[in-house]
């Protein structure tokens, strides 16, 4: 049995037909991705000399990308898990779009690390010779577990909808229908299955909430556990986390607005959802500026020589333009827009969200590079400088293109709005109505008999 959703056809419309415009978009994004892959191969052949990385600035754009993409990945968990735990039912239509942002941004965060390595062939040394003394290993553990859990969390919440497509979209190409059969793993839509699914998702939501805090804290500790000025502070964990949730939620606003426009989903993504997100974003923006003030005031008040080299470079030195630009892009302009223009206006919300994300990328850069340019033991190492090369810039653009490509393909294969979570009548209500009408409650979906459900190996345990 499938829950009754009057918007089912509308939500499934993008899955039914792939047009020429889609293929053109995929080709363009795929082309940019291939260009990035080509430049990466060139980097592997010629070495990291093709980048602007040097001594003592060992981490640049790639590590900025890593922190940024991991931050974006927090959107899904925030919308789906944290708001689920908080019992916010308005979040239901947004969950899958947000989870997909998580799913497709995390791999590019991981890729950014590998791109940054001079010897990527040695990546498995982490497993063979890993020493838990290193914060890098904490990172591999946390990010690996987060990626795995995000995939499972999204897959489980997709299960009823995959089964629905298996049962109702029988006119699709054979490979696609077969894919739904396999992925549905025998889901029948019984009451017990729905109960167990809800229970599992509730439990996982609590676990994911814990993970989301852990992951970005651990990411920040890659910096914070070293004794570098500007990094070695206990505040760096919550500072990174709040920035991640802010940029992730803004990414969801951008994605939702695009989906709403392109797939005509105004009915299922009403304006009030954007207004709810607007309130959250006002809170996060204020929280972010609080963290910035706490971080820099603490450092500047101590007035130690090493710390002041870094802070001065940001306030009125080489990085001042980027620093104050970041404040404008993440805080001043978006806050004014959210407060004065954002209500009932998706265009302004999207504009502000784009500014926030550009600003947040700069913020990651500003955290990483100035500290390396003015490192601890400056008198021995000397002042550094860093300017990214075109190779790094294009590879970064290709990450974004790759993420957009995966997202675009996903929206053509799976419903981007959860059908069962936004249903008008749940299976339980439908069963109760059937029982009240004097009929026996149907417990299983009337699946296509020619297509037996695929059983999970070991499911009979």
């Amino acid at each position: 049995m499938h829950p009754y959703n009057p918007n089912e056809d509308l939500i499934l419309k993008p899955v039914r037909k792939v047009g020429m415009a889609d293929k053109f978009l995929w080709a363009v994004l795929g082309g940019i991705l291939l260009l990035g892959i080509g430049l990466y191969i060139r980097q592997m052949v010629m070495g990291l000399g093709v980048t602007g990385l040097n001594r003592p600035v060992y981490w640049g754009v790639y590590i900025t990308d890593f922190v940024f993409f991991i931050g974006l990945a927090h959107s899904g968990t925030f919308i789906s898990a944290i708001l689920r735990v908080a019992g916010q039912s308005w979040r239901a239509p947004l969950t899958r779009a947000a989870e997909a942002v998580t799913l497709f941004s995390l791999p590019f965060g991981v890729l950014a690390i590998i791109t940054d390595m001079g010897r990527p062939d040695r990546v498995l040394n982490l497993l063979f010779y890993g020493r838990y003394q290193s914060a890098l290993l904490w990172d591999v553990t946390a990010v690996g577990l987060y990626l795995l859990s995000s995939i499972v969390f999204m897959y489980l919440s997709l299960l009823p909808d995959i089964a629905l497509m298996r049962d109702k979209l029988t006119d699709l190409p054979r490979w696609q229908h077969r894919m739904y059969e396999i992925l549905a793993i025998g889901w029948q839509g019984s009451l017990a299955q729905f109960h167990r699914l809800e229970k599992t998702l509730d439990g996982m939501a609590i676990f994911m909430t814990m993970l989301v805090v852990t992951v970005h804290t651990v990411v920040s500790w890659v910096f914070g556990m070293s004794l570098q000025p500007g990094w070695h502070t206990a505040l760096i964990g919550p500072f990174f986390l709040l920035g991640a949730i802010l940029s992730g939620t803004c990414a969801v606003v951008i994605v939702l607005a695009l989906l709403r426009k392109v797939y005509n989903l105004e009915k299922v993504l009403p304006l009030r959802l954007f207004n709810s997100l607007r309130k959250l974003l006002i809170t996060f923006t204020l929280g972010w500026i609080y963290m910035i003030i706490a971080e820099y005031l603490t450092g500047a008040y101590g007035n130690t020589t090493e710390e002041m080299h870094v802070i001065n470079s940001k306030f009125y030195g080489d990085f001042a333009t980027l620093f104050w630009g970041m404040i404008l892009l993440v805080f001043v302009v978006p806050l004014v827009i959210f407060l004065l223009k954002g209500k009932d206006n998706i265009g302004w919300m999207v504009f502000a969200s784009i500014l926030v994300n550009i600003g947040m990328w700069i913020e990651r850069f500003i955290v990483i590079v100035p500290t390396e340019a003015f490192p601890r033991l400056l008198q021995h190492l000397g002042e550094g400088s860093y300017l990214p090369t075109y190779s790094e810039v294009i590879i970064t653009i290709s990450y974004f293109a790759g993420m957009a490509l995966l997202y675009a393909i996903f929206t053509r294969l799976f419903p981007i709005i959860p059908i069962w979570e936004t249903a008008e009548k749940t299976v339980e209500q439908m069963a109760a109505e059937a029982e009240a009408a004097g009929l026996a409650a149907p417990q299983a979906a009337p699946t296509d008999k020619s297509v037996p459900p695929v059983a999970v190996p070991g499911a009979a345990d």
Partner: protein
Amino acid sequence: MSLTELWVAFYNTAGPGGVVIVIVLVTACLIYWRVTNWIINGGKHDRPHDTHA
């Protein structure tokens, strides 16, 4: 070997760190596998009712 020595050895030696990562990820995979089976088994459990449908 005392517990402290064991901890220091674990912390400082190259190798055990990788094992921790593998253990964490494999354990998570197993738990998620079992949970997925448990959810799907909900349908099998109810199957006798299908005859009424």
